[in-house]
């Protein structure tokens, strides 16, 4: 007897021939303007930090895959993009050992121990950055780290200033300056306008979901406006919260990571909005000046759960209620034993 073996493969079944590195090339192109601007603004130390972060991330990726005995993924560009993202979040004159430790934590603990690209539960860039910022807070807060460099514009980070001196500092940071990137912070997180252009490029290319990024910004705006309306003397407005710190960087490049965002449209909106609200809550009520890192990490933890929120299938409810209706006797007898 002939036995026919039919195997059912997981989707997707139609493939257009593109590859991970096509998406990663898009990410690099989108990040480049802000990275170049950071290098111009902070000078050679920034170039050194970015190159070291990218290089060490790629090397760690190769070593980790070899050590764990898995297929080599060094060429797919994901480690390169993650190294670049990590480097752009660091202050320009971060010590070399801190960059190497950070990319090690990112690639090895955040990414490869869980199986590499497509498998990690939390964004590795944020894992690496969060561990660094918990361990060496003084090295990572820009106004302490950048004390050796001469800079244009106010030296204090906008969000740290907000935390210390209240919303009146918003006058020191005009929105246009923030948009152009005249703010202290990570190398590539300050140039908000260029980052937004990069994000729009990625959305137009279809590489990241507009649902996550735009609902993220909407969440920040709504939550910040509510706080601002309740007490304008204590909380800054929506524009400041969106333009200052890592909000835009997080919205377009960190929260939109494929592996750690929900798949379905409605969950994506909820995920983005929730992240934005949480970030404003951490900034306004928490101890940290900027909540982007921890806000996105917390929502990353919940993304599989959020992905279960789906509209019910049309007609799906009929089947279920019909099935329940199959045993009317049981329902009647259990409700009224005297009838």
């Amino acid at each position, binding site marked *: 007897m002939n036995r026919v073996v039919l195997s059912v493969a997981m989707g997707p079944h139609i493939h257009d021939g593109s590859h991970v590195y096509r998406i990663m090339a898009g990410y690099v192109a989108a990040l480049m303007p802000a990275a170049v601007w950071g290098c111009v603004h902070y000078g050679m130390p920034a170039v050194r930090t970015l190159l070291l972060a990218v290089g060490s991330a790629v090397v760690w990726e190769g070593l980790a895959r070899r050590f764990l005995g898995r297929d080599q993924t060094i060429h797919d560009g994901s480690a390169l993009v993650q190294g670049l993202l990590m480097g752009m979040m660091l202050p320009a004159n971060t010590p070399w050992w801190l960059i190497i*430790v950070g990319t090690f934590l990112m690639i090895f*603990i955040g990414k490869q*121990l869980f199986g590499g690209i497509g498998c990690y539960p939390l964004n590795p860039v944020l894992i690496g950055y969060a*561990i660094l910022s*918990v*361990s*060496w807070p003084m*090295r990572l807060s820009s106004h302490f780290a950048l004390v050796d460099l001469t800079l244009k514009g106010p030296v204090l980070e906008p969000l740290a200033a907000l935390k210390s001196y209240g919303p009146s500092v918003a006058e020191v940071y005009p929105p246009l300056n923030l948009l152009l990137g005249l703010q202290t912070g990570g190398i590539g997180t300050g140039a908000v306008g260029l980052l937004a252009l990069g994000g729009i490029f990625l959305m137009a290319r279809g590489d990241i979901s507009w649902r996550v990024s735009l609902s993220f910004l909407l969440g920040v705006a709504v939550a910040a406006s509510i706080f601002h309306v309740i007490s304008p003397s204590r909380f800054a407005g929506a524009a400041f919260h969106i333009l200052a710190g890592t909000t835009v960087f997080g919205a377009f490049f960190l929260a939109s990571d494929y592996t750690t965002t929900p798949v379905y449209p409605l969950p994506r909106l909820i995920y983005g909005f929730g992240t934005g609200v949480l970030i404003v809550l951490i900034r306004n009520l928490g101890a940290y000046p900027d909540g982007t890192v921890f806000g996105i990490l917390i929502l990353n933890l919940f993304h599989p759960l959020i992905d279960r929120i789906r509209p019910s299938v049309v007609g799906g409810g009929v089947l279920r209620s019909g099935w329940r209706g199959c045993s009317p006797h049981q329902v009647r007898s259990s409700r009224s034993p005297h009838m």
Partner: protein
Amino acid sequence: MRIIREFTKGFTTELTPFRLVLGLCPTLAVTTQADNGLGMGLATTFVLVCSNVLVSLLRHIIPQKVRIACFIVMIATFVVAVELLMQAFFYPLYQRLGIFVPLIVVNCIILGRAEAFASKNPVMYSAVDGLGIGLGFTLSLTVLGGIRELLGTGALFGHPLLGASFEPFGFMIKAPGAFVTLGILLFLMNLLTSLGRKRAH
């Protein structure tokens, strides 16, 4: 010799936190320094040896149905003893370990050894079993605490080792550092075991 085997198994096949993955609560909570781990491990060892001996002595008298309650009463007695001894002789250590000294009562290693070993074996073997398991636990906690203390503060047993230019890796002495270190140690133990098995083939 069986007696040697009962002793060494506490360091090899039944190394508590890394092989049996038991007693993780003190393992994760108190190992911010090597001496905390050592003190916690020795206190547990004391309770473990005493409770194993007593359970083994009374194993024919304790009724089967109420044995768990009887074991807990005996263990609790020794925990109170160790608590008072630590207050008398090692007060700073007692203060650092805090609530985790009384919580030795509910450490599942001790009840586990009473139930699985001491209630079925003669006194001599039970004492040796308790000593081996307890010292294995002590060793694991000291190693874990040593790694975390060395990276997290640059010192070992309170003596600075890594020099003034070392900037402490503060994450290691925080709670998530305990989980990450434990995970990496488990990973290394499993790696060594699988390599050893491969070599044997």
